[in-house]
């Protein structure tokens, strides 16, 4: 369990942006794993099984909350402009060039947590869970175009969140702590 607990917790925490909920989900994942211990105990696929269950439970939690606001999220979602994309590229360039790795990781994790669900969830599924646009659309039951738009807006918003936190404006001092 110790070998996988960080991976399971990370998956749940990044998808839900709620550490207390992520801890509950992690507990549920390991309790289910215990029930299937005979099958999973020595299996090389145990890690994948745990990650899949963690993703599934986290998405169930997020989807329950999201369904209430889905209509409005879709009504008010809009494409990113070219200027916004360029500004976001500049922020990430600056982030990679000027900030220490450890500090950058903390900033990025904090910025991810602050993204709205409809942008964070597809972004995390795409970049951390290596899911394709089609798989994300099928799993979240939204259109392919909306997945692409939300991921693009999520990247721009991630840059915006980093920039608004003061990171991009004070690279020499490293900005404020997240």
């Amino acid at each position: 369990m110790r070998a996988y607990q960080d991976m399971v917790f990370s998956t749940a925490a990044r998808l839900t942006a709620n550490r207390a909920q992520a801890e509950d989900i992690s507990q549920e994942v390991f309790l289910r794993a215990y029930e299937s211990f005979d099958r999973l105990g020595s299996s090389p696929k145990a890690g994948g099984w745990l990650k899949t269950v963690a993703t599934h439970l986290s998405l169930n939690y997020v989807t329950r909350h999201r369904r209430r606001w889905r209509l409005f999220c879709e009504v008010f979602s809009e494409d990113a402009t070219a200027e916004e994309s360029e500004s976001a590229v500049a922020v990430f360039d600056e982030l990679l060039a000027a900030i220490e790795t450890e500090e950058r990781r903390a900033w990025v994790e904090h910025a991810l947590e602050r993204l709205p669900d409809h942008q964070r969830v597809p972004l995390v599924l795409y970049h951390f869970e290596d899911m394709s646009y089609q798989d994300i659309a099928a799993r979240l039951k939204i259109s392919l175009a909306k997945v692409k738009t939300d991921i693009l807006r999520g990247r721009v918003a991630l840059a915006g969140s980093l920039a608004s936190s003061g990171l991009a404006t004070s690279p020499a001092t490293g900005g404020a702590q997240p």
Partner: protein
Amino acid sequence: MTPGGDGDDRLERLVAQVLCEQPPLRAPASLETRIIAQLHRQARQPWWRPGFHGWPLAGRLLVIAACCASVAAVWIFSMPLWARVTAAAAQSALAPAAASAVYTWRAIRSLGSLAAHWVQAIPREWLIWGMLATGTLYLLLFALVAIGYCLLCSRPEHSKVA
């Protein structure tokens, strides 16, 4: 802008590079303790508590057999009883109850007819204007909720690059 431009590709590469470097988050120290405590709690529960799927196979088969037997017994014993009840109703014992049910049904039908006459008596223009007013109020309410969502629940400060 449609996703897929050069700037978007570069942004995707940069974000992928930054996110790939993110290590797993450290699970709280309390997680392992919580899971072990929960397993101990579950182990102390009686065998029938976790739910049907967790019961021993023999127990599950026994319960299924008992359920089938109960259904069969209810079916067999209820047939003569039902025949007796219908016979009694036809004679006189339950006749008043049956008659009152029929009267109630007729009264409901009469009320329905009355409501239909009232609706037909309302001028058509009134109905159209009423429907239009209802639709307008519905859209107004929708717009108010949408504005409330934008102001209170969405986080526009994160969706723009500062």
